């Protein structure tokens, strides 16, 4: 036992090593932390120079803000389950299903539009519950489970809509998404619409829950390490189900707003939201919180992606440019977050081949 003292003394240089606390402001403004905002500025500058006439008009911006607020809602509906380690690939179908449902309830069942919205949101919650039970009780991987759920919902959507636009919605319903707060008196086109407010409120609530409450903390823990979280007293399955229910509610809300904006039950509009939503969530995880999925990173990312696409379209690009842009951005975002995670681990373990010599 006599040798232990010598080993116990820790080299102070080693013990106290580690970067001195960086200047907080500089770190917060570093490219790594808020790259999306820098990309936003660059995109803005480029398009402002090339197409100043169209790109720099307030009309363009207000329309963008309004239209993308629904994408933000869809992205948040992907984000919450993903924080819990659950993929929700049914998001596009969930939104699309709500679009049709809220229209069918009004036209075929003559339901008042307020009630129709409530029912659509309730059914959205139920869809999330079913997905959650399939994943946690049925032990089916979330990727597969939500992909299957997506296909089922698309079938239901086609059945309800008979693959046609459903028109003849109630007048009051249309104002749900198109009403808002006028910015300039006497000009009804310049206004902040209801979806923008709803989006901000939802984003704030979700941010609060995820980052400020024990529930959110447990959700992150469950997503990172379900086994470890369980042993720390976290009810992982219940949180995963809850996250899918919350996602289902928000997706249905997005669907209702979408139907109201286009004033019809259009079976084609929902499914396309999956890719931009997923892309924004992954790109958002590289922002602000160093690799952690988070609300404001997601919100910013939706708009950065939208600005990029909008600019390209104003330059005369075809419609398919949005698919191309989202696809490339998704790969880049996931690659970026992967890189961030490995780079952070730094040289905790040095991997290298030892130098072997050869004897005589």
């Amino acid at each position, binding site marked *: 036992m006599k040798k232990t003292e010598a080993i116990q003394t820790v080299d102070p240089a080693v013990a106290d090593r580690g970067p001195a606390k960086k200047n907080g402001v500089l770190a917060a403004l570093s490219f790594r932390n808020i790259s999306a905002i820098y990309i936003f500025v660059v995109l803005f500058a480029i398009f402002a120079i090339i197409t100043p006439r169209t790109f720099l008009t307030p009309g363009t911006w207000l329309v963008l803000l309004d239209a993308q607020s629904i994408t933000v809602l869809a992205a948040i509906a992907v984000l919450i389950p993903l924080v819990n380690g659950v993929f929700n690939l049914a998001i596009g179908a969930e939104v699309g299903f709500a679009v049709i449902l809220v229209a069918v309830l009004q036209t075929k069942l003559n339901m008042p539009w307020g009630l129709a919205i409530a029912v659509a949101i309730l059914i959205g919650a139920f869809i999330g519950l079913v997905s959650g039970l399939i994943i946690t009780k049925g032990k089916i991987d979330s990727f597969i489970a939500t992909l299957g759920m997506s296909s089922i919902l698309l079938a239901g959507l086609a059945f309800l809509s008979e693959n046609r636009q459903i028109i003849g919605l109630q007048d009051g319903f249309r104002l749900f998404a198109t009403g808002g707060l006028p910015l300039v008196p006497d000009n009804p086109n310049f206004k902040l619409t209801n979806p923008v407010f709803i989006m901000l409120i939802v984003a704030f609530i979700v941010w609060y829950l995820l980052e400020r409450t024990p529930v959110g903390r447990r959700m992150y823990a469950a997503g990172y390490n379900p086994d470890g979280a369980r042993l720390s007293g*976290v009810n992982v399955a219940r949180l995963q189900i809850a996250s899918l229910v919350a996602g289902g509610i928000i997706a249905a809300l997005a669907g209702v707003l979408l139907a109201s904006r286009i004033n019809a039950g259009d079976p084609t509009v929902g499914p396309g939201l999956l890719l931009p939503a997923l892309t924004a969530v992954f790109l958002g995880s590289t922002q602000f919180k160093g690799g952690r999925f988070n609300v404001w990173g997601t919100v910013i990312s939706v708009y950065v992606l939208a600005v990029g696409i909008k600019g390209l379209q104003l330059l005369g690009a075809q419609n398919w440019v949005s698919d191309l842009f989202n696809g490339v951005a998704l790969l880049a975002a996931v690659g970026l977050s992967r890189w961030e995670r490995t780079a952070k681990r730094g040289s905790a373990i040095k*991997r290298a081949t030892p130098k072997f010599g050869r004897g005589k």
Partner: protein
Amino acid sequence: MTNESTIGSPMGTPPLLSIEGMIKDFPGNRALDNVSLQVGSGEVVAVVGHNGSGKSTLVKILAGVYTSDGGTVELSSQDGFDTELHIIHQDLGLANELTGIENLGITHYHGASSFAPFDRKKERAKARELIGRFGEPFDVDIPISKLAPAQRSIIGIARALDGWQHPRNVLILDEPTEALHATEVRVLFDAVKKLAADGAGVIFISHRLDEVLDLADRVVVLRDGRKVADEPRSDLDHDRLVSYVTGIPVGEAEHGENARRAGEVVLDIKGLTGEILEGVDLQVRSGEVVGVAGVLGSGREALPAMIYGSIDADVESFTLDGRPYLKRSPRESIRRGTAFVPGDRAKFGSVRPMTARENVTLPELKSLTGAGGAISLKREREHAQTLMQEYDVKPPRAEQVFAQFSGGNQQKIVFAKWLRNRPSLLLLEEPTQGVDIGAKQAIYDAIDRAASTGAAVLVCSSEAKELVRLCDRVLVLRDGRIAAELAGDELTETQLVIEGYGLKSEDEL
């Protein structure tokens, strides 16, 4: 006690593998300190030592996982034969869903031949021949998950040997018997002995002293990163080996200087049954540290998780703090004042990408919430920072990501996480696994402190030394039952080993 003299290979020829002055530093801890080792042709060299003695670090350097901070490794290239290193890691690196033939990877495909059909007959014959060298052949056409653990080890060894151009290579076996039963160990040892007889050099890493004495021609003992002995098997007996490994002279037993007074019964279990455990009775009193010993497969590993409620088990009766508690879950256990430090820190003990602060507060956030159910980040930060100081975590930065701390400091954080709410029952599984010696002491102190302030502590450990140091009494599990209870003067490392293996006397070692 130190014996730095090296012994050449028995046949008077230069060694196949020669390691000189190997050094490896981890932050705050020298894992290997000037370790030298030679292996000759036909020789089985055992490297023994406790967890944390530097055995696995040595293997990882040879395997290329770590780079060394000093020292050389030389392989012989005598008579035109270049000696190769073949390493079989503890988990064997096999694919459980594939058959024996597929795992053996008999045909080496290159380029266009990758698309040629298999010659099944030929492959089967070759596979039989390969494993036939190690005793009775077995079915090579079924997925290896259906084979006995020893048969899987043989597949692993056969695969490492396939493609040897000559027998004079070096095979390194890293804790190969960990998952094996006694009879299966025999099968494996026969295979290894055959190999050595053909001229190979074998390094056998183990912390099981009886196996070492059974198999090895020469024994190298590591302790705290240093080589403390390098002697032929014939010069060693069990007592001497124990004294080398533990650092305690023969005949002198170490006892913990703990004279705590046991209070009320906190945990009282009757007839706990599940997995391999069968009808285990257990009582732990307040202020008492009770150890659980037993070899791998004795049921030791599952016991704390069953008490905690993360693994299901049947009980005849289970009372905690005098109240029955039959439907157990981690969440409910925490609520009732139980804490569980699991053995697998990365998988069960922590959330690695989260900060130290987020890890320590995870089990109990209620006391840190304020208005609106929100966590008061200011209070949480202060609380976490105090804990970092109290448990001497280095560096004491609560905002650092858990994964970035060294193993010992990670374990201090895990202890801080569980001890911060003063549990009445503390369940510990391998509390100092992968922990450097400085942190080890800090963790022992924390356990002593918890017990002296009234916690009931249950420690499951594979380290006899640790149990002797920490415990008031130790229950020895064997084949799922309590085989012995040791306390007072009977509680020695030697006695723990003897009871753990069910040996009648030391002659059988």
